[in-house]
């Protein structure tokens, strides 16, 4: 298998799906010149009709993608998490609700790819990690690939899905490299967690960029003789509750690592699920290691303090180990 990076995995998935299905198009700002890398070469191969540079009008073009999907196109929209706010009405009132509201008549095969910036001074306006908000809204699929393999396989599944899929691309993960199949029908299914490491002492669920911290922490803890099981849910909707609950049954302990803000986070949701359905397995409190409940500051002296780190994960695991 060739080794490629995360962005190129997404680019490859896009190009393959566009080749396979002429109704797949891409829409977004400055795509044709591939400002952000994932649309490189598309306009040359597929032409201007299928690679659409939009004006700065997120609410408008998010909605246009949805409307187009009702009439035979399968748009892939590129954006940034923070710009979802601008187009939020279309994301919630239409993308998430239309199918149900219309009794199943509306089928919306749209993918929204949203980049999440991280560290390096993006500051409050460009640092949202808002997948929890879309988890909270019924009707959307929420996908957080954390390595090139999943990025490609989940992206291709999303393009083939008939539901609105949101792909959150974590800034940390997006620099990762890895082996990625080039079989044009390679897919990673939704709702199947990936257990990256097994261990009997503590379960660590990592979300998005949290997976990397979880793995680093687990490696470190293993040296001390604490064996962690690290789970990457890969998709938050649908969520593989079973994998998490079974792991907690084995380990009796749970730490959830999530780079998003802590309150009402995906991490809190997983904690709540386990506090209900896995309660009798628990031997210790559940700890969520998430971002502090402050806006993301710019200063390099402050920003790193906000996020989870391997050290914070290690401290949490030690705490639950008692």
């Amino acid at each position, binding site marked *: 298998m060739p080794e490629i990076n995360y962005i190129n995995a997404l680019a490859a998935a896009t190009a393959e799906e566009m080749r396979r299905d002429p109704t797949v198009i891409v829409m977004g700002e400055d795509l044709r010149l591939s400002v952000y890398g994932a649309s490189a070469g598309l306009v040359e191969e597929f032409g201007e009709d299928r690679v659409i540079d939009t004006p700065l009008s997120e609410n408008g073009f998010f909605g246009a993608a949805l*409307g*187009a999907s009702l*009439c*035979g196109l399968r748009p892939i929209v590129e954006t940034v998490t923070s710009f979802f706010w601008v187009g939020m009405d279309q994301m919630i009132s239409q993308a998430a609700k239309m199918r*149900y509201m219309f009794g199943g008549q509306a089928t919306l*095969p749209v993918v929204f790819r949203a980049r999440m910036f991280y560290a390096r001074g993006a500051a409050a306006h460009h640092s949202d990690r808002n997948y929890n908000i879309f988890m909270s809204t019924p009707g959307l699929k929420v996908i957080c690939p954390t390595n090139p393999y999943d990025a490609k396989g989940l992206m291709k599944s999303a393009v083939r899905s008939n539901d609105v899929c949101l792909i959150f691309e974590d800034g940390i993960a997006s620099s990762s490299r890895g082996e990625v199949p080039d079989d044009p029908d390679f897919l990673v299914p939704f709702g199947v967690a990936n257990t990256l490491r097994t261990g009997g002492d503590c379960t660590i669920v990592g979300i998005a960029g949290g997976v990397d911290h979880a793995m680093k922490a687990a490696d470190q803890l293993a040296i001390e003789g604490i064996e962690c099981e690290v789970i990457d849910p890969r998709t938050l909707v649908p969520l593989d509750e079973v994998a998490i609950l079974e792991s907690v049954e084995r380990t009796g302990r749970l730490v959830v690592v999530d780079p998003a803000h802590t309150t009402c986070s995906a991490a809190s949701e997983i904690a709540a699920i386990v506090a209900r359905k896995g309660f009798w397995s628990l031997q210790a409190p559940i700890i969520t290691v998430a971002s502090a409940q402050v806006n993301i500051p710019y200063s390099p002296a402050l920003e790193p303090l906000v996020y989870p780190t391997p050290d914070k994960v290690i401290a949490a695991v030690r705490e639950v180990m008692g």
Partner: protein
Amino acid sequence: MLPDNPAMHEMYRRMCLIRYFEETVIEIHSAGELIGPAHPYIGEEAVAVGACAALRNEDRIAGNHRSHGHPIAKGGNVKGAMAELLGKVDGFCKGKGGSMHLADFSVGILGESGIVASSVPIATGAGLAAKVLKKDFVSLVFFGDGASNQGACHESMNMASLWKLPVIFLCENNQYAITTSYKNSVSVDNVADRAPAYGMPGVTVDGQDAVAVHEVVSHAVARARAGDGPSLVECMTYRFEDHSLGLDRIRKVAYRSDEEVAEAMKRDPLDIHRAAMLKGDIATEAECDEIENAARAEIADALEFARNSPYPEPEALFEDMYADDG
């Protein structure tokens, strides 16, 4: 140019259907049989009917909260609409949408929207699909004078114009958004005055006259189908009833004078169309009566049908959320 005689008859039939549908809705609402909010279209029938008469079956429409007229005008079946209002399984949306969310995809109705202006980008996207897929359907979206102030309209008109999409932006200017006069919400005299800001044609037309609306929209449709891009059509009309059933408080407040309402009601779109047909020898009095009676009967049937339709089963609650998982 006048539509041909059968088309003129059909327009009258659909206007009657809408009128009687709405009268029935008001009746069953006050009897407590219908509980949700519902926004009567009475007085504005010529707009939806005139506009949809210029469309084909495969053309798409999208609408708003004042939502019963558009689907009926587009040929959606009134049984499905009425059953939807009663929350029954045979409703357009299996009872899940209700009054503000009527949709019948089988005849090109992409759905009404309770969020004001929210379907304007959706309809724009339908136009984008037509263009990219090289199909010759067009897309028409109904929105109010109030809605025209939403950013969604600006963004949509700009995109549609840039990309020369086959979209008709149809503003139903009934002169008020709930209690707010468009003179206090739109900073120009006419909504259509904004068309030049997007490089598209804009026309203001008498929305009480279905034939006039039909003519203007036909031009816009021809333009759209020819690949020349979108148009903005503003139909001046008037809502004869309250803003919404179930929002009783508004009945009591006097945001429109009695004289103004009385004056406006003199120009009933059904009367105007009937008169035009009689005058042009397009229909006889008897034919007109016949159309009215048939429409009345159809609505009565629809109500009967809706009443007899069962409520959805509890399992339905979890159905239709996602396409992939059945």
